[in-house]
């Protein structure tokens, strides 16, 4: 892998980040003055970045495959002793696709937000945060070293925090933001430690240096690195056991859920592992753990998604599950990296479309999120319905919609690796079919179950146009990337690609998967499309009840982490007051008490004083004489 200096249009690489960053700075620091034009500026900066990104893609395609890694060093950032890190960017095929995903989906969501947030008094701030997010996310994918990546990593965390708790007057929103940040911090510990371990091992945290020397390190070190990076990825991508924040994150405005908690930020974990492919390729155990974590999450997400009545939470469960697929793919190694990224891209588009569609529904339903009070919306929200259906077909993987191509490749890769992993992936696809059908059925079909004062209507054009664009993406992106874009050979220089033979021909797996998905969809349709949907959720079986409680994720966190922390903190407060401060104040009290007692010896009687003098005399003489003897 040769790293080329940035020339031509690539010398504007920094501008990709700088544009939205400047937008964020202007919007956030100028205050009320920019209320009127601020949102448009926000849209503009991201769109400009998107245009720049597209131009770069065109230029990059002209370059030979081995010269597509382009680096731009701004200056030496942190340097102490052996430790030296540049503020430097690296654009290669992997980051290129991310840049495009982030900027284009980002731009669409910005535009959508113009309509969605049009009545919010803090609209300007919202766009400022969104711009900040885009900048941070671009920094994350453009950094040429882990430390700078960390900055972007935490930057998106911050933006996510700010946006989740955007309606911070709601205590739930404020709490959700905090929860997201803190759980992400757990992941950050992993990333921090991984960076430290890299430095201690290799003396550098640059991608090229680390990957170049990775094979020299012991397998133990690489395994440790892999597990630490997995911890980081699990935090950011809401993978088990750090999944609990994502569902609460739906407290944020819907465009946020679409952009950050579906399309881009949550996939950063996948990016991190794909980026660090050299490490995982040489650390089998770490890769296996990735697969295990991914499979657990795939099912958790799917099960949670099947039980939620809140449309956004159902989608969030689905996101968890889908990212689990991606993680599964990266865990599979070189046979999966490419498809993980492929699925990441298609998912980014169709999930964004689904969320925005859900937002459009909520927009028409007075921000009600309970699907049990929806029903029969296909008539009143035609565009939303059609675009949502495109996303639906994509996510459950019906050909030729984009999700089919990417998910199918992952399942195929899973079978290449291991029969059980493959079967599990198929089973999860079946559940996907079930819960997505359930969502469609409850929302757009069946009978009206609207509240009395709700008058559903189609959203304005500024919202529907992004929906349409994303629906087109949901429909065609998969084919485009696979057949026209040749995603495998595009990404191969960065993440590697190899294929293993499977015992059965590919078509068998495709058909098998499709059958399972359709069975899932049919069950969903029978349960929710054909039957009456009760407005109050039935008690359900234990799994449903557990899934409604996010499979007890919070309870587990509480029992294992929060409660002990609180207990320890209370204990320490007590200790600090009683023991440490008590010792200090106690010493003072002892001295004071001693003083008070000794003071009484000063009785005021001359003869007492004389006695004390005689006592002193005895003492003095005794000391003199006794010492001599």
């Amino acid at each position, binding site marked *: 892998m040769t790293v080329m200096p940035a020339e031509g249009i690539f010398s504007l690489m920094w501008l990709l980040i700088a544009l939205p960053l400047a937008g964020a700075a202007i919007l956030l620091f100028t205050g009320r003055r920019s209320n009127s034009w601020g949102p448009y500026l926000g849209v503009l900066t991201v769109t400009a970045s998107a245009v720049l990104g597209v131009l770069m893609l065109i230029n990059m395609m002209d370059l030979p495959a081995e010269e597509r890694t382009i680096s731009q060093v701004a200056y030496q950032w942190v340097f102490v002793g052996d430790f030296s890190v540049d503020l430097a960017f690296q654009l290669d095929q992997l980051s290129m696709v991310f840049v495009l995903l982030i900027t284009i989906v980002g731009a669409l969501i910005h535009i959508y937000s113009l309509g969605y947030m049009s009545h919010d008094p803090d609209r300007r701030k919202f766009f400022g945060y969104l711009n900040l997010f885009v900048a941070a996310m671009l920094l994350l994918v453009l950094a040429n070293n882990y430390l700078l990546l960390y900055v972007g990593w935490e930057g998106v965390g911050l933006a996510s925090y700010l946006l989740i708790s955007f309606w911070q007057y709601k205590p739930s929103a404020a709490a959700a933001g905090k929860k997201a940040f803190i759980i992400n911090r757990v992941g950050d510990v992993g990333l921090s430690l991984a960076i430290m371990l890299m430095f201690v091992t290799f003396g550098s945290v640059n991608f090229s240096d680390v990957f170049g020397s990775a094979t020299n390190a012991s397998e133990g070190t690489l395994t440790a690195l892999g597990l630490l990076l997995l911890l980081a990825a699990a935090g950011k991508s809401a993978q088990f056991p750090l999944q609990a924040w994502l569902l609460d994150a739906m407290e944020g405005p819907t465009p946020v859920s679409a952009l950050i908690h579906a399309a881009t930020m949550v996939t950063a974990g996948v990016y991190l592992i794909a980026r660090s492919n050299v490490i995982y390729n040489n650390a089998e155990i770490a890769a296996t753990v990735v697969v295990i974590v991914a499979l657990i999450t795939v099912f958790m997400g799917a099960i949670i998604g099947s039980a939620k009545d809140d449309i956004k939470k159902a989608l969030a469960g689905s996101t968890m599950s889908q990212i689990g697929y991606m993680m599964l793919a990266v865990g599979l190694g070189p046979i999966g990296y490419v498809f993980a990224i492929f699925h990441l891209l298609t998912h980014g588009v169709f999930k964004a479309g689904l969320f925005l569609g859900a937002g459009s529904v909520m927009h028409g339903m007075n921000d009600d999120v309970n699907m049990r009070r929806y029903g029969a919306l296909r008539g009143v929200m035609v565009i939303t319905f059609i675009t949502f259906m495109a996303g639906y077909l994509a996510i459950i993987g019906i050909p030729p919609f984009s999700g089919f191509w990417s998910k199918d490749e992952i399942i195929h890769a899973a079978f290449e690796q291991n029969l059980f992993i493959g079967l599990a992936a198929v089973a999860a696809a079946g559940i996907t079919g079930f819960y997505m059908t359930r969502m469609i059925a409850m929302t757009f079909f069946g009978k009206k179950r609207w509240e009395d004062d709700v008058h559903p209507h189609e959203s304005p054009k500024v919202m529907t146009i992004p929906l349409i664009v994303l629906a087109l993406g949901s429909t065609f992106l998969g084919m485009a990337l696979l057949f026209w874009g040749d995603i495998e050979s595009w990404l191969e220089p960065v993440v590697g690609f190899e294929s293993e033979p499977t015992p059965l021909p590919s078509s068998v797996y495709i058909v098998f998967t499709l059958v399972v998905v359709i069975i899932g969809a049919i069950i969903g349709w029978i349960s929710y499309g054909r039957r009456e949907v009760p407005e109050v959720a039935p008690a359900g079986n234990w799994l449903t009840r557990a899934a409604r409680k996010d499979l007890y994720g919070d309870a587990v966190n509480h029992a294992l982490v929060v409660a002990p922390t609180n207990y320890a903190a209370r204990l320490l407060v007590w200790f600090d007051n009683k023991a440490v401060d008590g010792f200090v104040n106690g010493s003072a009290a002892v001295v004071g008490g001693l003083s008070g007692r000794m*003071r009484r010896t*000063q*009785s*005021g*009687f*001359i*003869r007492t004083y*004389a*006695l004390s003098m*005689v006592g002193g005399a005895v003492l003095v003489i005794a000391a003199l004489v006794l010492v001599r003897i």
Partner: protein
Amino acid sequence: MNPTNYVILASVLFSIGAIGVLVRRNAIIVFMSVELMLNAANLAFVAFARMNGNLDGQTVAFFVMVVAAAEVVVGLAIIVTVFRTRQSASIDEPNLLKY
């Protein structure tokens, strides 16, 4: 007679004086006890002068007598003043200053 006996006597007198200060309540008697201690010292000086064979001790004794006299003047002045104020010669009576 062995001069050492005088020294022992002086020590006994000194001790009697010291004990007098500690146990007697009347200011005048306390004061006399102090004088007894001074005179014990005089006796010791004289005895030691004899033992050492020089006159320094005797000279000192004279000086101490003078000093003792001066002390009597000052002491009685104070004691009398206090007595006049309090109508009591008890040394335990003035007990406002304490702790």
